[in-house]
């Protein structure tokens, strides 16, 4: 009996890990924008699903080979990120946080409308790019798509951790996040950094969208996932790449276990209850930097 329970929990953990790694990817997008520009992007989920639809469009409607379709999608996503920043967020530099949040909420509604208008609400199947036969390790089952997701999330995590730590651009982005005026004085082009972080974040979102829709299906409502990632980002800490990954995975696993034992409705709210608890106890998250307010 005991080993049965343990086994069950382990299986739930493994499938939770796969969902969690997608959360991590979307959370990574949040963190990149937040780290550089101090903007918490409510539209991240919509950017994600837009990326997935663009990729779908390239593959299914234009019959572009999968590799090139991915590449084109990333380019398109980067352009979307740049344009968004240029049009809607450049004018908001220095505005109060409330206004900036409202622009991102407006953006999310806007993008949702664009996606729905362009592709409609029929459930679509994303063309498979890995084999669909489940892989099993000593009795625990995982689909290859999930496995790919976990690997991609891991690779991206390493890349971005190194990027922020060692590359000039990454350090520049951190500097801008820390103090815009000082980084301007140090000769960092704040405008360029802002555009760049939106482009990168948008590409990461697109990767997340493609992986998510290949695991499940393609539908505008998947953008809701962006919302479900909030708890992950907050748990990890808003400005920590490491936090995004760990937070995403923890939330994915906890949610899956809660869903497995307490039912679907509980699954939906678990992460948000966790979210409120974290905000009360440790608002800067596991790995985030504690903000100190000077009077």
């Amino acid at each position, binding site marked *: 009996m005991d080993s049965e329970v343990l086994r069950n929990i382990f299986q739930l953990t493994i499938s939770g890990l796969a969902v969690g790694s997608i959360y991590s990817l979307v959370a990574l997008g949040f963190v990149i924008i937040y780290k550089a520009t101090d903007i918490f992007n409510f539209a991240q989920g919509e950017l994600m699903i837009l990326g997935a639809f663009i990729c779908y469009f390239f593959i299914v409607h234009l019959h572009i080979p999968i590799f090139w379709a991915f590449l084109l999608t990333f380019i398109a996503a980067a352009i979307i990120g740049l344009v968004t920043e240029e049009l809607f967020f450049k004018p908001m530099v220095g505005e109060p946080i409330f206004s900036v949040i409202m622009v991102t*909420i407006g953006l999310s*509604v*806007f993008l949702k409308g664009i996606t729905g208008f362009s592709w409609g609400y029929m459930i679509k199947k994303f063309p498979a790019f890995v084999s669909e036969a489940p892989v099993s390790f000593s009795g625990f089952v995982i689909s290859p798509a999930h496995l790919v997701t976990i690997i991609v999330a891991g690779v991206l995590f390493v890349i971005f951790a190194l990027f922020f730590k060692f590359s000039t651009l990454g350090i520049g982005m951190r500097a801008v996040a820390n103090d815009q005026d000082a980084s301007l004085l140090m000769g960092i082009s704040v405008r360029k950094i802002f555009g760049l972080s939106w482009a990168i974040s948008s590409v990461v979102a697109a990767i997340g969208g493609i992986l998510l829709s290949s695991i499940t299906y393609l539908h505008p409502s998947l953008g809701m996932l962006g919302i479900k990632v*909030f708890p992950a980002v*907050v748990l990890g800490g808003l400005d920590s790449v490491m936090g995004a990954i760990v937070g995403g995975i923890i939330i994915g696993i906890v949610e899956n276990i809660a869903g497995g034992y307490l039912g679907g*409705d509980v699954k939906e709210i678990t992460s948000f209850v966790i979210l409120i608890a974290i*905000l009360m106890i440790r608002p800067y998250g596991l790995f985030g930097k504690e903000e100190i307010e000077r009077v």
Partner: protein
Amino acid sequence: MRSGDFKVSYKEDIAILQTGFVKICIAFFIIALIGAVLVSDNYFVYIINLCAIATIGALGLNLLTGFTGQISVGHAGFLAIGAYSSAKLVEAGLPLLLALPAAGFIATICGLLVGVPSLKLKGLYLAITTFAFGFIVEHVANAWVSLTNGANGITVVPANVFGLSFDTDRGFFFLVFPITVVAVIYARNLARSKPGRAWIAIRDRDIAAETMGINLCWYKLSAFAASSFFGGVAGALYAHYMQFIGPNHFELYLSVQYLAMIIIGGLGSILGSIFGAVFMTILPEMLKYLPDLLRENYPVVVERFADINLILYGLIIMLFVIIEPKGLNGIWNNAKTYWRMWPYTH
């Protein structure tokens, strides 16, 4: 026509209706509105009623977000709580005039619960917390089947006061309009008296406000209480007007709509809340005429009409925040100043 601000006493400066001209205008407006309701068709009255309900909800959100600066992305949660409470209370036999404030108070209790994190969190973190609250309420409404009948929704008893039934559009107007007027006056009084000034001080600089002796805990919580009370009453009125409510009436989208109202109308302004509520209620109704014009040439527009609505909402919210952060109220004030001084610029 007044030509400038010449106040000789403090009392005059904070008066609700500042000049005789304004009094005449407002009296004229109310008479015109009632007249219009009496002679026009049901559709027009329906819109007016929705505007009135939205006004109450928007006032509540504006007290919290516009005046106190506490971002709430979960206003729909309070509306939902008010709506379900009132529906259940009236069903249990409580008269409507008691059920409305009772629904408001139940929403207030929840508002206080949500307000507690605000003592510690601000800005972005508070936005996420209220957002989570809205999300949780929506899902509880879905899951608590014994109370809410889940996603199927419940039918609500039509409004009935002292044996008078207010179940027609026109009848409901005479219930909702006085309540809205009371709500507007109450909100205005809150805003111009001590709580309102304390809220504004907290919004502008909370630490400075605290050093000046404003009790942050008390005033932040009171802002949440006031806001959720208005939200609860608006939700209750909505429930009795529609006579049917379900969790999908109170989605995240509704919270965004209310935020859009106060941004478009003008943050921290009572008049702005009214402008915004009316604008956001009328806009989708106006847009309904769009498909008729385009049906022949662009059938896709008709088919994907809801998405066009979304696109426009998103654009309007972003453009107002970027271009006219003071909202319609700011435009209105500028226009007034312009005409008052006309043709001189100073």
